[in-house]
């Protein structure tokens, strides 16, 4: 009888310990998952910020180079940005007299941001008339 009681008590303590270790383990796994999600999110935000800056620069570049008679051109970038894997390409979607639409795509490694801008000629310069940012995605 005493042996049986001792066995039951050991079993109770063992299962209680396993339960607590399980709960603590689940909490650690949940925290690790959230930390990993936040780390990925922070990395993507940094990449997206670079891509938005590249789109802004490319829009200005388009106002300067729209009369170069090229349908597609790559925006020249400093070596430090090229080393980060950034590439920006602009393509004339339509041009009709004093109005033009340009599609700009910026890439950084596998991440891609796109915008379509419309420009209107004012005197000897092109001015930005509208800008539509598309989804930034992989």
């Amino acid at each position: 009888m005493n042996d049986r009681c001792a066995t039951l008590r050991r079993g109770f303590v063992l299962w209680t310990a396993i339960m607590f270790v399980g709960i603590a383990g689940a909490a650690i796994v949940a925290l690790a998952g959230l930390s990993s999600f936040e780390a990925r999110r922070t990395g993507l935000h940094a990449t997206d910020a670079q891509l938005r800056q590249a789109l802004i620069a490319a829009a200005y570049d388009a106002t300067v180079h729209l009369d170069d008679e090229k349908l597609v051109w790559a925006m020249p970038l400093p070596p430090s940005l090229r080393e980060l894997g950034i590439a920006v390409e602009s393509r004339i979607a339509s041009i009709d007299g004093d109005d033009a639409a340009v599609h700009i795509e910026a890439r950084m490694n596998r991440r891609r941001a796109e915008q379509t801008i419309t420009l209107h000629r004012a005197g000897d310069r092109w001015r930005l008339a509208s800008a539509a940012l598309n989804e930034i995605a992989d």
Partner: protein
Amino acid sequence: MTHSRFHRGFSLTELLVIIGVLAVAGLVVSRLFTSSMRVIDGVPKSHRQLVLFDQMTRAMERDVWGAAAIEIRAGTVVLTQPGGGVIEWMFGQEVTRAAAGAAPQRFNIPNLRPSLDGPALVLTSDAGARTFQSQLMLMEGMQ
């Protein structure tokens, strides 16, 4: 001698030490249990909140990016589009986006405070600030 060594009771000191050790262990275990349960309960909520915040910021980013003018009127951000259309973002206990021809979008994100910084809209919360740039207004300043 053998009988007394194996069959004597516990002294008061031994009992007090054991009770003290059990009390400390119980306290540690109960705190670990409540903390673990709080984490298990809170992590999915934090995850959902982050995803919701990202959805809201993506929509706001697109709206501000193409805005020709940004105004703030009593907690409402008014974004005027180049064609004359207006998109309103209302900030209070939740964030609401209202645009002509589209159903209002609501985001359950409280305590965001909008402010202007040149061609950019800044959203401030207790956790930090996020800046949204208007491509049109920025280019207007450069040209």
